[in-house]
């Protein structure tokens, strides 16, 4: 699969490494060149320095029939704006926004945006731990 990841942070970089190891075609975009230091030395995908909100930086990748896009910068609002634009302008199988604010994540789900909420996942995990102990 061809995957685009916007935001090479703690989570984005690990996701990129794993997908790359698994043999997928990965493109990582971050506005800060330094962020790519988080990628492993073996990473064979593409790195693009740029702003995910500006279409010029994502268009070349998405035009060549990417399958999935993950918007996972540290800013919720940036992520939901990116995915809403991409959904309107490109044909991808899945477009996913990482939204840390749990209420906001729910709201965008209602608007038909696929969201992953790390806060909800951590809470779910912690609650499960408590129940198991």
């Amino acid at each position, binding site marked *: 699969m061809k995957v685009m990841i916007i935001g090479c942070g703690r989570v984005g970089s690990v996701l990129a490494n794993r997908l790359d190891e698994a043999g997928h075609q990965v493109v990582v975009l971050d506005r800060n060149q330094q962020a790519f230091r988080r990628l492993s030395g073996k990473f064979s995908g593409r790195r693009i320095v740029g702003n995910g909100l500006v279409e010029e930086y994502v268009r070349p990748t998405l035009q060549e029939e990417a399958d999935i896009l993950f918007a996972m910068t540290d800013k919720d609002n940036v992520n939901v704006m990116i995915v809403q634009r991409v959904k*309107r302008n490109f044909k991808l199988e899945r477009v996913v926004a990482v939204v840390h604010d749990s209420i*906001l994540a729910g*709201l965008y789900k209602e608007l038909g945006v696929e969201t992953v909420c790390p806060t909800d996942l951590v809470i779910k995990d912690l609650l499960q731990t408590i129940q198991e102990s």
Partner: protein
Amino acid sequence: MGEVMYVIIVGAGKVGYHLGSLLMAEGHEVMLIEKDRAKVDLLSMEFHDAIMEADGSTVEALKEAGANRADVVVATTGNDEDNLVICQIAKVMFLRPRTIARVNNPRNEELFAGLGVDASVSATKIINAVIQEQVKAGDMMIPLLTLKAGDIEIVEVQLTRSSHIVKKKIKDLTLPTGSIFIAVIRGEEVIIPYGETEFRPEDKVLALVKRTSEEALRKML
């Protein structure tokens, strides 16, 4: 003035601040939401209870500001992604308000419209429109006044020796439909034109013209 509105403004930068002051002076109820404490402190003398410190792009903040009874929510921050989220939250969670967003990057205007923002305002676009008007004026016609929602204009034209209508009388001209000469300024003199009025190269002509006939009038002159 119409009835009193409750307007929530997110972002107390220059745009948000002046908009809030204006609306309050007109008797409307206003709530400014600003996340920068320093800005809030600075404006609290003037806005008292009408300013609160919070991230306006969250459901909690808008709820606390009373978005449920707001007539309008205006997002004026310098970040388009924040302005979009503010308007979308307002639309989904608090069905009533009209949403207005400031668009910092004019290329986002179309996206905003497609995503349920009722109206967007782009300073870049407005200034550009004004510049375009001025450029058009450079090739002769200066719009002096725009009437009735932009449909009719009063324009001023400085004639030159090469103008087609010089040395011609009004009665011999066929004006484009939707246009009429209202005055001829010749030196210190203002002439109300009639059929026998003959144009001279130094004349300034004032005309009333429909937008749709502007181009035709421009060609004729």
